[in-house]
């Protein structure tokens, strides 16, 4: 089966600019996750979708971050405006349920 697809692979932006990341999960996986991995740390969950509904967005900085999952398939994560501390790898993952988590290769964001 095809893996979790993410794009772009790298992105460099200036602070206060906006940026968007895209994720295409594994076909048939109802649950989709966005994780933020700051250098030297483990990934931290930003948001979890079940189909196109939000299950957990308690750690999403909602003043600047937004995410959507239209039609319960693809998802986009947006940051507007970006801050220096948003520099990180953004990982998307999908699963059928609590098993079978599959991660994408992530987008490395650098904010200068």
């Amino acid at each position, binding site marked *: 089966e095809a*893996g979790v697809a993410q794009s772009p692979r790298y992105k460099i932006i200036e602070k206060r600019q906006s940026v968007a990341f895209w994720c295409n999960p594994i076909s048939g996986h109802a*649950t989709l*996750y966005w*994780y933020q991995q700051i250098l*030297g*740390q*483990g*990934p*931290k*969950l930003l948001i*979890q979708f*079940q189909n196109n509904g939000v*299950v*957990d967005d308690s750690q999403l900085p909602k003043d600047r971050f937004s995410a959507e999952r239209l039609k319960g398939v693809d998802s986009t994560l947006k940051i507007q405006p970006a801050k220096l501390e948003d520099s990180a*790898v953004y*990982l998307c*993952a999908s*699963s059928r*349920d*609590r098993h079978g*988590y599959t*991660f*994408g*290769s*992530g987008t*490395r964001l650098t904010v200068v």
Partner: protein
Amino acid sequence: AQTVTQSQPEMSVQEAETVTLSCTYDTSENNYYLFWYKQPPSRQMILVIRQEAYKQQNATENRFSVNFQKAAKSFSLKISDSQLGDTAMYFCAFMPNSGGSNYKLTFGKGTLLTVNP
């Protein structure tokens, strides 16, 4: 809230030898899952091994095995016959199993393992 602690930022081992990575966690949950993930430079998180808390038997997956001590909240990973391809960041992770659809993984900070030839 759950926390996961990996006290070894870096470790190294000679090829073909055995190494153990440590992980402790804190939770008030009684039912949960524990995981070890490997993250090579490609950045993709790869599942190494999974342990269900209600199972007393330690999980094994080829050269990888765990020592799960539920009372001590300890979950270490043993890699036998280390290979150069095992060089990567290793993350310990926790997932509650309290019903519902919350499948959040809580990760430790990771251990960078280097296998030397």
